[in-house]
């Protein structure tokens, strides 16, 4: 486990020294600041608009980092051949993979926390005080973070067996598909025969359900987010990431590096 942490720490350090991430966080803070302006011109629903825009910015920036950095985590090391010296150490390939995953999730946690802090400052600026109900925004941010962890795992899986560009497309495609899992599951139409319907149902359970993580509407309107949903999503993420990372490790462990 300590070897996983060594790789994770270094992955985090790489992100900290990469100025692109700072630019993205700056961009997100800018979006939140603009939300304040937009909020001011939206009569009576300032905080709704601002929280919606703020959470969307956090989610979007997080997704960009998760997909692009996630795909490059392993493929960049293979391309640059930095892996050769690392794998000569007493380090198993799955440990390396898990360390990379943990490092990026840690980076995303820090980034998301910074952006969430910006959002709370904006809320404070608008409402002059924070109330207990604003904690739902925190829960929404946590669910975004879980979603990002799952996206990173998927990006890493695809990057283990295909080119970075295809891995980005596959991850993006799967993310979009995962937003419509409920619709796929409840598809009741006479257009398809029962076998196809059944296939859609099975597929809806296999696809990562990204809809689960979307509580932006509730958070913006200050509605409570059930603890059971947070727990469910946490367990779902751990399980799904476990399966995806195990598959990635199985592929990566047998991969010939150039």
């Amino acid at each position, binding site marked *: 486990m*300590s*070897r996983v942490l*060594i790789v994770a720490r*270094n992955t985090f*350090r*790489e992100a900290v*020294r*990469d100025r692109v991430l700072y630019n993205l966080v700056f961009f997100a803070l800018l979006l939140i600041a603009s939300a304040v302006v937009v909020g001011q011109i939206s009569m009576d629903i300032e905080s709704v608009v601002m929280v919606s825009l703020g959470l969307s910015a956090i989610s979007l920036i997080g997704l960009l980092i998760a997909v692009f950095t996630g795909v490059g985590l392993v493929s960049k090391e293979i391309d*640059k*051949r*930095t*892996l*050769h*010296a*690392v*794998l*000569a*150490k*007493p*380090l*198993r390939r799955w440990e390396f993979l898990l360390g990379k995953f943990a490092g990026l999730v840690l980076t995303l946690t820090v980034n998301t926390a910074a952006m969430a802090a910006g959002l709370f400052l904006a809320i404070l600026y608008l409402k002059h005080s924070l109330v207990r109900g604003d904690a739902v925004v925190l829960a929404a941010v946590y669910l975004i973070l879980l979603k990002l962890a799952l996206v990173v795992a998927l990006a890493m899986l695809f990057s283990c067996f295909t080119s970075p560009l295809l891995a980005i497309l596959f991850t993006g495609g799967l993310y979009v598909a995962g937003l419509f899992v409920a619709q796929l599951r409840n598809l009741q139409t006479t257009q398809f025969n029962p076998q196809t319907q059944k296939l859609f149902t099975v597929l809806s359970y296999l696809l990562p359900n990204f809809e689960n993580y979307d509580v932006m509407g509730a958070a913006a309107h200050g509605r409570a987010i059930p603890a059971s949903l947070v727990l469910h999503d946490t367990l779902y993420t751990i399980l799904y990431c476990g399966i995806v990372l195990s598959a990635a490790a199985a592929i990566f462990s*047998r991969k*010939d*590096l150039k």
Partner: protein
Amino acid sequence: MQVEEGEVFGFLGPNGAGKSTTIKLLMGIIFPTAGSARILGKPVSDVPMHRDIGYLPEQPYFYDYLTAAEALDYFARFHGFTATERKERVHKMLKKVGLETAGKIQLRKYSKGMLQRVGLAQAILHDPKLVILDEPMSGLDPVGRREVRDIILELKNDGKTILFSTHILSDAEMLCDRVGVIAGGKLRGVGAPGSIVGVQSVGMEIVFEIAEGRQLAETIRAKVAKSGANYRITVSEAELYETLEQLRATGAKVISVTQVKPTLEDFFMELVGKDRAQAAAIEVSGK
């Protein structure tokens, strides 16, 4: 092919012969389609065994956002050293490879030769029993090559086993107890650098000088080559005394007489030549 404990083993072959591929197989970077290999008595897939191996990849690349000291510290962590031990070892290694003053510079600012030195440092910082170096001299200037040679000899004196690949034959002749020659993906010979190429003399080289205006005998003139102020001629052992007599008769001053033995380079060239001829024959026959 077997590398014995405590020896310096040179793995020779032209570019594309399969040297790096073999080493990558040993290090678990790529996987064999057939056959097996063992290191320190364990299969190459045994990851804990890597504690006792140091590896310098060919044209090594490291995280360029780290300084040399940070990169070495990162690698040292995998061996479970304490913070104090890591600091000591990193300092010692940077000094050993001549990067003591450049330890705090990010690797993106390093030259190829400096990266090679970092590569060497990370390969030996945990005091491994076996050191595998893939083209350790590549990218280095003459001073750097000399320093790497000294480090290899130092490691040998410390009782380490060293396997290194190279296509620079003089390095192999100077450092190796034994060499293995690979060409076209096949091992062509293993043995001491002297024995592998044969001990039979291929002739005698005479170096001499001659005053201007003096005429050399016709038979000598045909074979002689001028280098600087001196002349050199290579003759068979049977012709040696007769040639010396002719030179003396023309008033030449003999500077040296040396036995010419086949070099690794001759052996190497012969192998490569055979390979190319074989490849051409296959191409012509269409098989």
